[in-house]
């Protein structure tokens, strides 16, 4: 491993460590899972213990899009616009069965899973998922961030 490679791997791990513990999430809340998101974000289950507590209500300042609740076809362009307006590096969590696969609503009105609209990193099943499941999903995302190839200005494309 040449000197330069040694440097970049150290940089990658440092970057991964920094990014995974300072996730600013944009809560894209629509439906019932929002109640469970409230419990997760509040004092009892406290998502802030894992560094992801700061909610940013503008896609410019957020790097984690937390899609919570059913996404209907009328809302799909809104979700796509918010995702496009987020800055790199960005991640997406699908929170709840409706975002994962349309859940119990398979009809003319609901998008059958938000991975048809935006690329999703972690899927959290459950209708609604218990707060512990949400925190577990967040930890899985943090592992993914730590061990993935970090994206920075002069990163060599794989």
């Amino acid at each position, binding site marked *: 491993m040449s000197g330069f490679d040694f440097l970049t791997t150290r940089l990658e791990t440092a970057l991964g460590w920094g990014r995974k513990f300072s996730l600013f999430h944009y809560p894209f809340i629509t439906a019932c899972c929002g109640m469970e998101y409230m419990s997760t974000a509040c004092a009892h289950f406290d998502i802030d213990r894992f560094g992801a507590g700061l909610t940013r209500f503008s896609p410019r300042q957020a790097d984690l899009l937390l899609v919570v609740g059913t996404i209907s076809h*009328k809302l*799909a362009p809104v979700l*796509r616009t918010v995702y496009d307006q987020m800055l790199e590096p960005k991640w997406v969590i699908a929170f709840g069965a409706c975002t994962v696969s349309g859940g119990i609503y398979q009809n*003319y009105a609901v998008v*059958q*899973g938000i991975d*048809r*609209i935006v690329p999703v990193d972690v899927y959290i099943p459950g209708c609604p998922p218990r707060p512990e499941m949400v925190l577990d999903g967040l930890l899985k995302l943090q592992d993914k961030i730590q061990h993935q190839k970090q994206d920075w200005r002069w990163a060599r494309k794989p």
Partner: protein
Amino acid sequence: MGQETLIEAIRTRLGPDLEGSADSFGDLVLLLRAGSVRPALAALREAPFDYAVLLDLTCVDFAASEGRYELVYHLYSLSRNVRLRLKASVPAADPSVATLVGLWKNAEWLEREVFDMFGVRFEGHPDLRRILTYEGFEGHPLRKSYPWRLEQPRIPLKDDV
């Protein structure tokens, strides 16, 4: 006043507009002629009956079996603490009925929802547009003829997921 006297009072008040009355699980139901919905409900809002609140307005699709849409109005009288259900049938070929905008303020949104879901036109409605579905949506989803799972996406969706 008891149910009998009430029906008589309404029959004298509405005259030919009242086509009949029925009882469904204890609730009083009145059948109206489609053309006279607005005057009839305006009359029921006034003094002796004072049904002040338009509780609900919805529609049931009997197009396949009986070729008609049935508009169901629920009124509620605060002073007499009693509900009333009124039904009016409109032909499935050209479903249209007079609007209630001007009598009650929630009629605007209720009628927009029935138009959106069933395609019943409300004459005189100031702003009859879709309310629950979106602009590019063809067809009226709650009609029995509309397939249950026919999706009309607004943006191109990835299918290979």
